[in-house]
């Protein structure tokens, strides 16, 4: 076992940091207060990702046959960490390179690959993920947005909700129901967001402007060729996608960086001497580092080519604990940070506070740990 980064991994991290230093504007910290899905950050990301592509660090972890450099999971992790600590200047395009691209490569038709992969590699496309519905959140398989095949076209009707990036995305990775079979009746359709019949409404939130939306589909008609995979194959494809994105965003890194920033502010103001503040800060640091090592243990399994199972849920829940602790530490000891005194800590709070809700709720992670890590007998249904 080796807990230090190799020289090559360190060099890769520094390459990214140097790039960020050279390409983020001087007022970036204030600017990044705009959420990752905001119009301002999305517009910024369109230029920034093109530069990343030119520098060869937009998708270096992709295999050589996809045009990547074939770097491994550790480099993907390092790339994600550095971008997230910096406030995610890729905006929503992080999804493209983490899972949409690899999923297109595996399941897409030649036409779909030709149409969608190249814009991703140029840093020019933005996707949204049409999964959750008003009555299908954690219980995703109960989704009802219906797609009906009629004369060579799918006609789609229904509603999605809490959809990130929908306001500005070019394409939706949409889960639809094509039959009543709970999981085997779900089908993916790639829907251009400018198709007539789509209405996007922003949901005002405290986690940043432009972040989440309702999306309505009223007889939205797309050709049958927009189907991704076979009818009923969505559950399998999404499971594959999650293998590329199982750990989700490396939130623990930003939590730790925010904690360090909070401590620095407290020190500058002479407010870090009291023992209970120091102890609470250390407790937060322990939770951040705990989450980090738990996440790294999962990355190692990817490196070793092993199947990743429920241990990723354990790592994700550790991250939720860390995010919660740091968010609460800042509010308790630096309440002014969320009211203008620190754009960085406010940005962290807005992104960190959703850790237990976004991309699979914390309680679902606990269910998975109970059944698949601890192997407890299942609850009766």
């Amino acid at each position: 076992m080796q807990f230090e980064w190799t020289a090559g991994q360190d060099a890769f991290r520094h390459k990214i940091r140097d790039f960020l230093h050279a390409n983020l504007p001087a007022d970036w910290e204030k600017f990044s207060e705009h959420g990752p899905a905001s119009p301002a950050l999305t517009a910024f990301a369109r230029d920034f990702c093109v530069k990343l592509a030119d520098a060869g660090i937009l998708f270096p972890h992709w295999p050589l046959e996809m045009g990547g450099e074939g770097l491994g999971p550790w480099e993907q992790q390092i790339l994600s960490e550095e971008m997230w600590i910096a406030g995610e200047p890729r905006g929503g395009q992080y999804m493209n390179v983490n899972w949409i691209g690899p999923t297109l490569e595996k399941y897409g038709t030649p036409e779909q690959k030709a149409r969608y992969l190249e814009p991703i590699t140029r840093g020019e496309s933005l996707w949204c993920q049409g999964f959750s519905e008003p009555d299908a959140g954690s219980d995703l398989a109960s989704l009802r947005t219906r797609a009906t095949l009629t004369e060579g076209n799918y006609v789609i009707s229904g509603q999605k909700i809490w959809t990130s990036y929908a306001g500005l995305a070019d394409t939706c990775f949409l889960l639809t129901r094509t039959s009543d079979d709970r999981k085997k009746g779900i089908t993916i359709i790639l829907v251009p967001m400018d198709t007539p019949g789509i209405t996007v409404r922003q949901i005002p939130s405290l986690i940043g402007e432009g972040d989440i939306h309702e999306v309505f589909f009223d007889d939205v008609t797309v050709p049958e060729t927009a189907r991704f995979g076979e009818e009923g194959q969505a559950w399998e494809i999404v499971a594959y996608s999650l293998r590329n994105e199982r750990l989700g965003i490396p939130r623990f890194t930003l939590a730790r960086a925010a904690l360090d920033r909070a401590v620095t502010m407290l020190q500058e103001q002479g407010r870090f001497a009291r023992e209970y503040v120091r102890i609470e800060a250390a407790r937060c640091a322990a939770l951040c580092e705990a989450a980090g090592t738990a996440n790294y243990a999962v990355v190692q399994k990817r490196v070793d080519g092993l199947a990743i199972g429920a241990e990723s849920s354990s790592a994700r829940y550790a991250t939720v604990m860390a995010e919660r602790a740091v968010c609460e530490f800042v509010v308790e000891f630096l309440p002014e940070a969320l009211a203008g005194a620190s754009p960085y800590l406010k940005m962290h709070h807005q992104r960190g506070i959703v850790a237990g809700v976004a991309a699979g709720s914390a309680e679902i992670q606990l269910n998975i740990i109970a059944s698949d890590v601890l192997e407890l007998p299942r609850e009766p249904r």
Partner: protein
Amino acid sequence: MHLSLNEDQRQVLDFIDSLARPYAGVPLHDAGLTLESAELDAALVENGFLDVLMVEELGPVTAALVVEKLARLPFAVEAAASSFVRPLIDPDLPRPLCLVEEGRTGGPVRFLRPGASVVIVGPSGVRSFKADESVIAGAQEDALYAYPVAFLTGLPDAMTAHEVDPAEVLRSWRVGIAAEAAGLLGAALASTVTYVSERKQFGRPLATFQGMRHRLAEDQVMTNSVYWLALRAAGTGDPGDAALALLHAQEAAKRVCYDYHQFLGGMGMTLEHPLHLWTYRLKLLTAELGGRGEQGLAAAEALWG
């Protein structure tokens, strides 16, 4: 970064598994609150398992893996201090080692008995002496801890001074105890999971009730991350990592001991079940080195000055 076990580590752990197999079971009822085995201890010494830190190709991470593994046994083994502190001060110091903080000599001392090496660690240095009956007061016979404990009645005038940085000893001490706590946490969790999966109430296993499942899952998250933080602290040798590892271990112990006794109901309170062998060791470890607060302060000092 490489977090898989290497071949040497796998072999060491497999060897311990075979060696410890006769000690994996628990003699119930008559075992009392503490359980030790001189034979197991001798076998570990004879095979060099408490000295792996000094073996170049094994080192501190393997030592932490060994301590963690041994702590899972129902039998208490003085492994953490011998594995992590003894090599720093004197590899020939007689075992068991009893680590005591200068100025905190009044608490229960684990494994204290005639012949043990007592090591006093503090700002004025690191000193040791061989304990004899004149400085030992036995604990109450039915003391609740599942480690053998006794009290120091005083310190001898003459002690052996060791030329070693006390801060380095404290760091290693924290790593050793964090690794021991990781093993205790793992064993206590496994033991509880087995029980609640078999015990039926209302016609179904207790483990099928979500109120219990979620708390056990959270306990797993804590247990898993204590393991990794302990190994990392061993691997990096960083004082901040060591303080964070023990802080997290003590936080976890406080939480899970309550849960597990609660989930075992009456069985957790009687000696019909071995749970106490792990939890009532963990409880004493929550007080080690001044407890969570002291680890927090040490970590804060190391991280932020």
